[in-house]
């Protein structure tokens, strides 16, 4: 059987046949007859040039298919076919392929497994681009900054890396990851596979309207890629794949209430979420909360800038586990302390929970959420499954 693929389609009920997409497509993948404007699945390379020029939004449609719809089939449509049932992990329809590379798709599936079922994107999230660049055809980015985020005498070396893509299009949404290909070969003499890093900058760039992204990378002892990245200097170039990920995304709906729980570099996507909302909707009040764990304040990436975010814009709760003369505190402890807020969010149909960090945090957090649910008269697994199927519960742990 063929591997399911993501196919780009145009909604014939919304399209007004202005053919602007067809004129814009740089490789002639779009064509029309007297009835419909259609995309040739064999040609479309997901460059996304047609998306912003469409006046209607009809161009932004995607289906996961075993066999792409042919041009003739599409010419005959008067409406889009529903997403067919594709057996993926045996649990029904999959509208959210995270990556086309098997290896990366497997990595993301593992990272998202803590959600207890198939992850779904928030309904109002922007549509992500995925796999624009791969191992065979990576993008090249130039390093324009590398700053240590943790104090020089702290235990860990976490870095803020800024990569500029120059004229290469690299559309990436908050919550998505990119792959970095370390130079050189492994012990078998084969090229290294890319390592995934979640971007920590919003879609319009680390600096607004610059074609750049930032990453939050922790130096791992003997880590091939993390040492490579942490040692990069401005002017160096790196090979990048991606973007990847199509579920751990920010809802566009400004009415969404976000609760974000993280440790260490798991803060990267939440920095992106926060910046996006600050840029787009700086006057929002009481719709975001962040539970952030680290050993000490010195070890906590972005501790300084975070303190400057107004409490009314985002409630910030820090948990430190190695503070001298203080009891050990983990994020789950802080969740319990704020049980009323957490329970209110579980009940809120616009409530979203995001968890990101080390695999080790998953168990404790889940236990805390479960206890909080119970004391509020809710059953956590039911709440979780509903939220997840709604695209409102997201876990990404490594």
């Amino acid at each position, binding site marked *: 059987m063929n591997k399911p693929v993501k196919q780009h389609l145009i909604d014939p009920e919304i399209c007004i046949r*202005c053919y602007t997409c067809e004129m814009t497509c740089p490789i002639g993948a779009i064509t029309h007859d007297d009835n419909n404007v259609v995309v040739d699945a064999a040609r479309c390379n997901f460059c996304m040039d047609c998306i912003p020029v469409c006046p209607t939004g009809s161009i932004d449609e995607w289906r996961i298919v075993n066999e792409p719809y042919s041009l003739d089939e599409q010419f005959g449509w008067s409406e889009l076919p529903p997403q067919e049932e594709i057996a993926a992990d045996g649990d029904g329809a999959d509208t959210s392929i995270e990556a086309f590379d098997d290896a990366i798709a497997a990595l993301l599936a593992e990272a998202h497994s803590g959600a207890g079922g198939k992850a779904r994107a928030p309904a109002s999230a922007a549509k992500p681009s995925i796999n624009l660049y791969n191992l065979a055809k990576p993008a090249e980015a130039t390093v324009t900054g590398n700053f240590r985020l943790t104090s020089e005498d702290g235990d860990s070396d976490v870095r803020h890396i800024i990569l500029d893509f120059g004229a290469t299009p690299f559309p990436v949404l908050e919550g998505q990851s990119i792959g970095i290909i370390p130079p050189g070969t492994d012990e078998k003499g084969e090229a290294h596979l890319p390592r995934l890093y979640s971007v920590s900058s919003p879609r319009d760039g680390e600096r607004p309207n610059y074609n750049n992204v930032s990453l939050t990378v922790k130096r791992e002892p003997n880590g091939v890629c993390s040492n490579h990245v942490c040692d990069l200097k401005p002017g160096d170039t790196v090979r990048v794949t991606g973007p990847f990920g199509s579920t751990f995304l920010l809802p*566009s709906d400004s009415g969404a209430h976000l609760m974000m729980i993280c440790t260490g570099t798991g803060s990267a996507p939440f920095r992106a979420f926060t910046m996006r909302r600050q840029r787009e909707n700086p006057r929002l009040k009481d719709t975001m909360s962040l539970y952030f764990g680290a050993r000490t304040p010195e070890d906590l990436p972005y501790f300084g800038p975070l303190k400057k975010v107004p409490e009314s814009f985002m409630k910030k709760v820090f948990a430190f586990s190695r503070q001298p003369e203080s009891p050990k505190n983990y994020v789950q402890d802080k969740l319990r302390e704020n049980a009323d807020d957490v329970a209110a969010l579980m009940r809120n149909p616009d409530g979203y929970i995001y968890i990101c960090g080390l695999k080790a945090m998953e168990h404790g957090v889940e236990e805390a959420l479960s206890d909080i649910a119970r004391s509020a008269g809710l059953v956590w697994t039911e709440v979780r499954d509903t939220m997840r199927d709604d695209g409102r519960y997201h876990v990404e742990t490594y």
Partner: protein
Amino acid sequence: MLDLINVSYDTQIPNNVGLSSDKRVLKALEKWHPGYINWWNDLIPDNFQQSLVYLRTAVSVDPKGWAKFDYVKMPEYRWGVLLAPQVEDRTIPCGEHAGEAAWQEVPGEYRAMLRRLIVIQGDTEPASVEQQRFLGKTAPSLYDLRNLFQVNVEEGRHLWAMVYLLHKYFGRDGREEADDLLRRSSGSEEAPRMLGAFNEETPDWLSFFMFTYFTDRDGKMQLESLAQSGFDPLSRTCRFMLTEEAHHMFVGETGVGRTIQATCEAMVKAGIEDPYDTDAIRALGVIDLPTIQKKLNLHYTLSLDLFGQEVSTNAANAFNAGIKGRYMESRIDDDHKLHGDTYEVWDFEDGKLVRKEVPALTAINMRLRDDYTRDASGGVGRWNKIIEKTGIDFQMKLPHESFNRKIGVFADKLFDPDGKLLTGAEYDAGMPDWLPTHADGDFIQSLMVPVYEPGQYASWIAPPKVGIDNKPGDFEYVKLHMA
């Protein structure tokens, strides 16, 4: 190096034509600018000028950069001069110079013809803003209000586009013509706009949607043929304008579609099957389908007149000179010269309508009008699908092109919407069923009440299926300034 993709903001006028190093044109445009701002400020009611409108602005002319959305106060909108990227080694696509290198400067022998075409195109742009100036006060939703303003600011930008060409390439005559574009005004007694359809007022939102669907589509066809011009700066200007024009088509098609949707849904809900049960349907606060058909008849036929005479030597000359091509010229498989070719047009012989072969060169207007009719009939078919889905037995259709015409072979004669020649008495008897009456206008006017709550829509129009820029249903597209 000159950056010709990204918009430069180093002058008061955003542009990608290197204005900062073109002092003569920059100075001329800066002199014209205050008059433009005055024109805009006199036109749009003050509370809307102060409102924050969720508009798109182009920051570059490549696909990634031309649709940046943000809240903007309209007087602060960055109207600019934007040309599509130059195509390397572009050649003149049609006429006697076909195959020669495209002109980067105005060819002397065609100067007057080019100037006239640019002035006519330029004259329509501010005219439609003038025609639509009062609509904001009765917007059926913030979403529609935003769409109206997007259309308005882009028509304003299209005026800039034509004014730039006049200033850059036509010297003193060009400057005078540019001033006249602000002097003439829609519906004015002493200085009306140049084309008839642009002197009619747009009294209500259904007229606005019909106008953007039918009349702006004429604009689109004209732009399409000017985008084929051998005069490269005109071609590049029009190519970029077309991407914006597509939004206007969208507003028209979905506006009429949503009106039809609301009518059909209300009929189904009330259990009314007969689309001609006018009073009962109107009592539901929606516009009955036959009245929508009458509006369609009116706007389609007014728009057909914009194409001019069926057989025209002016059009032949423009094509032959390579100044104006045909719709999708580059995709037509012929010699692009039309010597010896014929084209079928309507004519009137012995009291009867006949089809007649004439030299294709003289039938350029007719051909464009046929392309227009084909293009316009697509949306009508999609409106009918909306009706069909609700199970109501009614079909919209384009009237015969002889109906209600003031220009061309059909002018001065009376036809019904099926193309049947009528006596004056027959025509008078049928008119109330074919074109909107005063009573129809009054009824539509009675429904025009503003709805300014985010996510709410007037009774006569359905919400859109998709938000602008993928925004959710209750998005506040306009943050109204309350004086």
